[in-house]
């Protein structure tokens, strides 16, 4: 079976969704002729035409605002925000319109819009190209927020997001775009809004999503050499959170470490820690620990390796948890 990169897997997923439903549109900056700056939409305009794969003006509010109108007209727009740090001009349209129109209209209007955002750092980029803004969107009622971590999920989750009748913010870990995996298209996928244990273990539960899943799996492998048995859960969905597998795991291990690139302060880890504490209080052997970016703006790329959680910082937090 052929190996496939995450970028290509999402591309294949988009293609499958467009084949399946003529109402699916792809729109964004450079998504057409160029195929996107990460080539995730490569070849789609050639095959589906300029009416369905739309090179837009450089205006993110315009992308989301017109997507609202297209959705009202019965289309299913898949909007690409070129980089995480460029989503903010569209923030008002996403938070005040996309997220609220179903509620405002008492369900008469649906917003089946997917907002694809390549996110996270580690690629040596300039300012605004390495951010992790997921908490802003997970905080907003009316949106659903997911993050894929590998090519298999990239292929399936984008199709599942497109077929969702609610707006989905779809985070893609840009530093993992070129990582490969074998994709068996005949194997049915997990439901979209579910988390999943990707490595079983007994001693500590490690929770991650997007780019940090791989980091955590590597950390778990390293810890195993020291005799520590780490369970890793890929959260996959950030809103709603699927806490069932998390609670089950923590009741078993008594310890949890949440890992993300976004700053720890009021990040996803804060909410996850609170929920674990509420549901698993008597099982906990240690406070829920968090590893993430610092409360600084994303730094110049020459020091981003210090800013981003890496294997050593994750293992250091595992040791702190075990020390309780």
């Amino acid at each position: 079976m052929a190996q496939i990169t995450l970028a290509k897997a999402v591309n294949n997923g988009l293609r499958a969704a467009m084949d399946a439903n003529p109402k699916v549109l792809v729109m964004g900056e450079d998504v057409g002729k160029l195929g996107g700056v990460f080539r995730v939409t490569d070849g789609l305009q050639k095959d589906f035409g300029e009416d369905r794969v739309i090179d837009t003006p450089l205006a993110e509010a315009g992308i989301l605002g017109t997507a609202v109108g297209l959705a009202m007209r019965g289309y299913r727009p898949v909007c690409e925000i070129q980089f995480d740090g460029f989503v903010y001009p569209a923030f008002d349209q996403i938070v005040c319109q996309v997220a609220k129109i179903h509620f405002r209209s008492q369900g008469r209007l649906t917003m089946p819009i997917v907002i694809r955002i390549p996110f996270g750092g580690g690629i040596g980029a300039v300012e605004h190209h390495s951010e992790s803004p997921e908490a802003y969107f997970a905080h907003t009622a009316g949106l659903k927020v997911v993050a894929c971590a590998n090519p298999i999920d990239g292929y399936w989750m984008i199709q599942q997001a497109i077929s969702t009748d609610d707006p989905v913010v779809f985070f893609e870990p840009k530093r993992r775009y070129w990582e490969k995996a074998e994709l068996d298209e005949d194997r049915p996928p997990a439901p979209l809004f579910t988390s999943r244990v990707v490595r079983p273990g007994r001693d500590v539960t490690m929770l991650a999503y997007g780019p940090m899943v791989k980091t955590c799996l590597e950390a778990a492998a390293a810890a195993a050499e020291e005799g520590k048995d780490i369970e890793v859960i890929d959260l996959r969905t950030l809103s709603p959170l699927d806490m069932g597998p998390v609670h089950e795991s923590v009741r078993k291990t008594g310890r949890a470490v949440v890992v993300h690139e976004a700053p720890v302060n009021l990040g996803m880890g804060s909410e996850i820690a609170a929920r674990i504490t509420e549901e698993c209080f008597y099982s906990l052997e240690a406070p829920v620990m968090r590893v993430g970016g610092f409360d600084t703006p994303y730094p110049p790329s020459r020091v981003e390796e210090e800013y981003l959680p890496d294997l050593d910082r994750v293992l250091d937090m595992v040791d702190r948890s075990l020390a309780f």
Partner: protein
Amino acid sequence: MTESDFGPDLGEVFGLSHDGHGAELVQLLTPEGQRLEHPDFSFDLDDEAIMGFYRDLVMTRRIDTEATALQRQGELGIWASLLGQEAAQIGSGRAMRPNDFAFPTYREHGVAWCRGVEPLHLLGLFRGVDQGGWDPYEHNFGLYTIVIGAQTLHATGYAMGMQRDGVVGSGESDQDSAVIAYFGDGATSQGDVNEAFIWASVFNAPVVFFCQNNQWAISEPIEKQSRIPLYQRALGFGFPGIRVDGNDVLACYAVSQAALRRAREGSGPTFVEAYTYRMGAHTTSDDPTRYRVTEELEHWKLKDPIARVKAYLVRNGVTPENFFDSVDAEADQIAAQLRKGCLELPDPSPLDMFDQVYEDESPELAVERDKFAGYLSSFEGAH
């Protein structure tokens, strides 16, 4: 610089703005009720239609007056009055066909009337019992949008959808459709509105950008928004702009009809600046005496959009006996119904707020609702 520098097609309908042509208002009915001819626009309906417009204008104002009274009596939290803007809304609203779609601000009560929205349904938002009480698809009239200018992008996207559905410039005049985006003078400073102009222009989308320049954005006069007449901005975006007397229902109808036809035919967007005046406050929470002089209001009262239609009808003796009295009586009846309906609007149940957050409700939201329901039922006497 010659006209051809701006392209051969622009301005064929409305004239180029840079040469001064079109700098004057398009006016077809003077404040004194006299019909005028205009070289580019004519009002092609009969006196029967003008009587219909008169009725629309009176009903709209009466609904507005009643809603203001309801707010003053504590039955509405707030009301955004359209006083003075009736002609702009009825003229443009009546120029729409059933297949056309309107995207309103929160002040388009006259357009709502034209689109057949039950007046009572406008009040839910202002009473605080809902956030939009009508089915947009039933009336082809979007929900009121409170964030200034956001709806202009929705309108443009919807128009792009019409293009993809093959109902623009198809040559089948009964199916070809267009969109009207409503907004005010203040909104023209918003990024969203300027982006909507750009998108509609480059995609040649069938949108009529209908700006009611009522001179005031709450307390800020038009001079705080623009150094040039608003309609002249359109040319910079690559489509025609025209200024119409916003208190002249005949001119608003004629200009809107031409712009809509142009959009339906596939010739792209048009900017219509309906030059009018907000005779009331921004909303019932506002106090215009803090920022504008009474003389200005008195000046605009002489240009009242309803008085001039009545003057025309009276002058020409075209109305049947008791026409004006019967319109007034009907208006009072509608106002009484509106008041009764408003007082009877039920409050939503606290648990209703959990409904319709999503099309497919998330399990965690269901849990939150159940917990809150349990909390509510824990009180003595709770049902």
